[in-house]
């Protein structure tokens, strides 16, 4: 004959965590309470889970102070402002360069060969600048030792 286990005698398992956290329904809470009244193992587990929760709550898993976070946040604001500033500056430079280039191309007083030479010089400078910037950007992303202070 198979002996049936009454619900109150069944171990409550994960409900113990829910009980500690106050996340159970009234019915579930009653079930845990009744079971723990009879079961020493679950009662002990409940006490240990409570102690564990308290210990974690009181621990210092991160020790960064509020002031440091404020500073971090200010840096964030500065970086955003600086980013907008650079964007506006580059947009302005490009607009001025565009107008200048247009004026240079339509200038009737300059021979075509002179225009080509000047275009070659400025295009060469622009390519060098782009190449250097690209290299710096790649180094910044991949250099493991960029933050090392000597």
């Amino acid at each position: 004959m198979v002996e049936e286990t009454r619900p109150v005698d069944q171990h409550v398992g994960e409900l113990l965590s829910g009980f500690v956290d106050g996340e159970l329904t009234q019915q579930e809470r009653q079930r845990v309470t009744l079971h723990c009244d009879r079961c020493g193992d679950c009662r002990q587990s409940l006490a240990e889970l409570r102690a564990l929760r308290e210990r974690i709550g009181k621990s210092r898993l991160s020790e960064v102070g509020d002031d440091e976070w404020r500073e971090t946040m200010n840096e964030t604001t500065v970086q955003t402002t600086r980013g907008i500033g650079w964007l506006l500056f580059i947009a302005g430079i490009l607009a001025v360069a565009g107008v200048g280039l247009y004026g240079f191309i339509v200038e009737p007083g300059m021979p075509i060969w002179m225009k080509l030479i000047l275009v070659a010089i400025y295009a060469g400078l622009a390519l060098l600048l782009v190449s250097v910037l690209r290299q710096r950007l790649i180094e910044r992303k991949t250099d493991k030792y960029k933050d090392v202070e000597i």
Partner: protein
Amino acid sequence: MKNDEMREELVQLGNGAHALATQITGNADDAADAVHDAFANALRKPAAYDANKGPLKPWFMHVVRNRCIDLIRRRRPGDVEVEELSDPGAGPESSLEIAQRDQELQLALAKLSSGQRQVIVLRDYMDLSYAEIADVLEVANGTVMSRLHRARLALREELTRHG
């Protein structure tokens, strides 16, 4: 929510966010970067947070978690993933004891899976409700209690083993 109010509330969430990020990235420096990025995201687009949908804390933890996941994806092979725990250092005896207890806890946490560490930090350190944790971790509401319970049992075992 006004920007100043949001800034102050985010400052208060800094340590919890850092603790969560450390458990995900396994490294305090990467965690600080993730929190920094999350601050930047939140302040750049404050309208992304809708106060009618719930408190700032779970929303911000979700942002932090996403930043950590991005950070891990960007990691190159060979990058240091798990940081060696620092020495608690000298100081008054009581703070040394606290530091040692915290270090034991961190060592025990390090033995758990990332998912288990996250759920413990969100509940026991950050005090989020199960529904909020489900939102942050993007899991079903009913999953939280079982995952948390397994995580706590595993942590208890680790602490007993090394305690």
